[in-house]
């Protein structure tokens, strides 16, 4: 086996699209990408070592899962796009009669074909072994993932990824200098903890200081344009700057909040709720990666019934979707005393140690700023 390329963490490999007009599926962040360099499958793959990550490559089935169903069952069950039905014209050499014979023996999709033993199939369907091997080779080349080595990946990332500053130094420090495009940041917090304020502040800062377009999707009715105006006005005094309208690509997507629309679908006897939530997650990540957007999502918290602690809503499945999670809390417990101080702590991050906290001031007319002389940072 050749040496594994050390892929950098953060984004899955940018394999060129092979399978026709399929849209790429979203891979999870931090895919180890540890695939062997060789592309062509060798005969007798039973002894070959399989790729470690049963990740979902862009719209294709991993070539090496064909070796044996027992060794690598997960990729066969991965969603959808791997299960392409065999039909005539899928590749040269695959004729309609062949398809009929294969179907009669229970081989309907590409995955079935590739993972079956060709000698048996040749005998049962009375097709020529050579023809079957040729077809399989073409199918594999057409549908398999194309590995890319770590150095190329790094070069591509350096040229395509951007880091958007959030406008607040303390928040930037928490997020390792800002929002990374192609990734999803989740803000969670109790009601009144300031999630909408942080979103508005980031939107104001990105659209004003960085002159990028922002798409704000609001599902709670919390978007107040006058507050946004206050935030923009605190950054600049000129009227023209506040109103300038730029035509250009959107660079920041803010969804406030995703759990308000997904929560009614989950639980109970509704089985599609989870599927819809995962489809939403996939769309978000595909958008983030394809268009190079930085995505900010807001989530609610619920109280854990056993321990009484606050935990993020939407469950464990959703917790794999964002790459960075920040929890917002009030600095004082009781609601009796009004304060504009909030503590933001890092709960999940691919770059920083978790548990870092910074203090933010979301009130008044200023941007998100740390309190002067704040000693609230802990490592």
């Amino acid at each position, binding site marked *: 086996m050749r040496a594994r390329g050390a892929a950098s963490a953060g984004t899955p490999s940018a394999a060129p699209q092979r399978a026709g007009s399929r849209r790429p599926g979203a891979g999870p962040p931090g895919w180890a990408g540890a695939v062997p360099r060789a592309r062509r499958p060798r005969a007798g793959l039973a002894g070959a070592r399989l790729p470690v990550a049963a990740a979902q490559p862009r719209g294709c089935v991993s070539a090496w899962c064909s070796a044996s169903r027992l060794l690598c069952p997960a990729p066969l069950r991965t969603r959808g796009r791997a*299960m392409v039905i065999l039909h005539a014209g899928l590749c040269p050499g695959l004729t309609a009669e062949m398809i009929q014979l294969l179907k009669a023996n229970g081989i309907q999709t590409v995955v079935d074909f590739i993972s079956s033993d060709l000698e048996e199939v040749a005998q049962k369907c009375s097709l020529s072994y050579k023809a079957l091997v040729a077809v399989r080779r073409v199918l594999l080349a057409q549908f398999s993932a194309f590995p890319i080595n770590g150095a190329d990946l790094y070069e591509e990332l350096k040229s395509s990824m951007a880091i958007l500053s959030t406008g607040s130094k303390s928040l930037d420090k928490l997020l390792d200098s800002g929002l990374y495009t192609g990734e999803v940041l989740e803000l969670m917090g109790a*009601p009144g903890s300031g999630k*909408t304020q942080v979103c508005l502040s980031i939107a104001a800062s990105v659209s004003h200081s960085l002159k990028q377009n922002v798409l704000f999707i609001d599902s709670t009715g919390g978007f107040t344009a006058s507050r946004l105006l206050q935030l923009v006005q605190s950054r600049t005094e000129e009227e023209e700057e506040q109103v300038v309208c730029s035509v250009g690509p959107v660079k920041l997507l803010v969804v406030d*909040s995703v759990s*308000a629309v997904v929560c009614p679908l989950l639980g109970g006897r509704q089985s599609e709720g989870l599927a819809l939530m995962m489809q939403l997650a996939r769309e978000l990540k595909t958008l983030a990666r394809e268009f190079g957007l930085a995505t900010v999502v807001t989530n609610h918290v619920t109280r854990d019934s056993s321990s009484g602690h606050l935990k993020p809503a939407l469950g464990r499945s959703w917790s794999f979707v964002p790459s960075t999670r920040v929890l917002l809390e009030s600095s004082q417990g009781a609601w009796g005393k009004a*304060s504009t101080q909030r503590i933001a702590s890092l709960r999940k991050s691919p770059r920083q140690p978790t548990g870092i906290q910074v203090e933010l001031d979301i009130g008044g007319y200023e941007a998100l700023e740390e309190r002067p002389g704040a000693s609230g940072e802990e490592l």
Partner: protein
Amino acid sequence: MQRDLGSLPLAPALRARLVGAGFSTAQELLEVGPCELSKEIGISKEEALETLQVIRQECDSNAVRTGGDPTALRKCTALELLEQEQAQGFVITFCSALDDMLGGGVQLTKITEICGAPGVGKTQLCMQLAVDVQIPECFGGLAGEAVYIDTEGSFMVERVVDIATACVQHCQLIAEAQQEEDHHKALETFSLEGILSHMYYFRCHDYTELLAQIYLLPDFLSEHSKVRLVAVDGIAFPFRHDFEDLSLRTRLLNGLAQQLISIANDHKLAVILTNQMTTRIGQSQSTLVPALGESWGHAATIRLILHWDNNQRLATLYKSPSQKESTVPYCVTPHGFRDVQPPPPSQTPEGSEMNPRKRPRIEEDKQ
């Protein structure tokens, strides 16, 4: 459009068969004809035809919605939103301190939640707002109608008569002081009978009726397009007793919240909800928190908590996207919700909190 099969409205058994046969997106299904589909999956031709029709309808309606009708997605720039917001009015509460704290009054297109212990004035505030929304525009109101949904049975018509009479008198005083033409014209329609006839009252006895009423509200509102306020007095009451399945309750409440948000946005009205308080027992102390749990806290955009402090009623703005958190005192008088009057200077300079217009409070009900 590449829509996943999981998101289309198909029967689970049918979906399982489709996935087993290798279909994953709506696009693939639409390429196949009904005969081939029935052969591949093993269902009858009529079923295959039906399924394809359903899918085609879904995809077409999506295309129409995204392509042809941008208003359905409600996409607009922040500048347009700002202009809309600045042109919008507020529903005033007649308590100027409270109005200032809220930024002018109860905002339209947002959900405001009012929480408080029993007897602190939540229903009074709802009734006051239901009257205030009808104030004519020349006096600074919205000239709208009100929908009042009552689950606790605490709506008293006699009290509304008192409040409305005081409001009409207030406007008459303004009209006499300013002597403008449209004031007098407006006062002809703004009378006690007018106010009462423009308040639509619904009584719901349990959560099913409440849910049904709120889901049917859009139809009602499209007939009565002048409604500018929907008040639900007691949203906690039907959900707090007799509910074994708490996750069902959370789901119902979330769905309710989303429905109210969409009503508030589509018809440009203010939604007011009243909530009860419950005790959360911590390690060393217990605190009063709004009822219905953490997840309900996210439903309301603006949260107002009414509480007592030594015989004085206070209102705290706990959650708001545009205003700062603060606390103001108020009082409930025979005329309705009013500001706390500063004590007249002839009294002793102790700064005592007794003031003549305050309704006396019984001692043993103190928190």
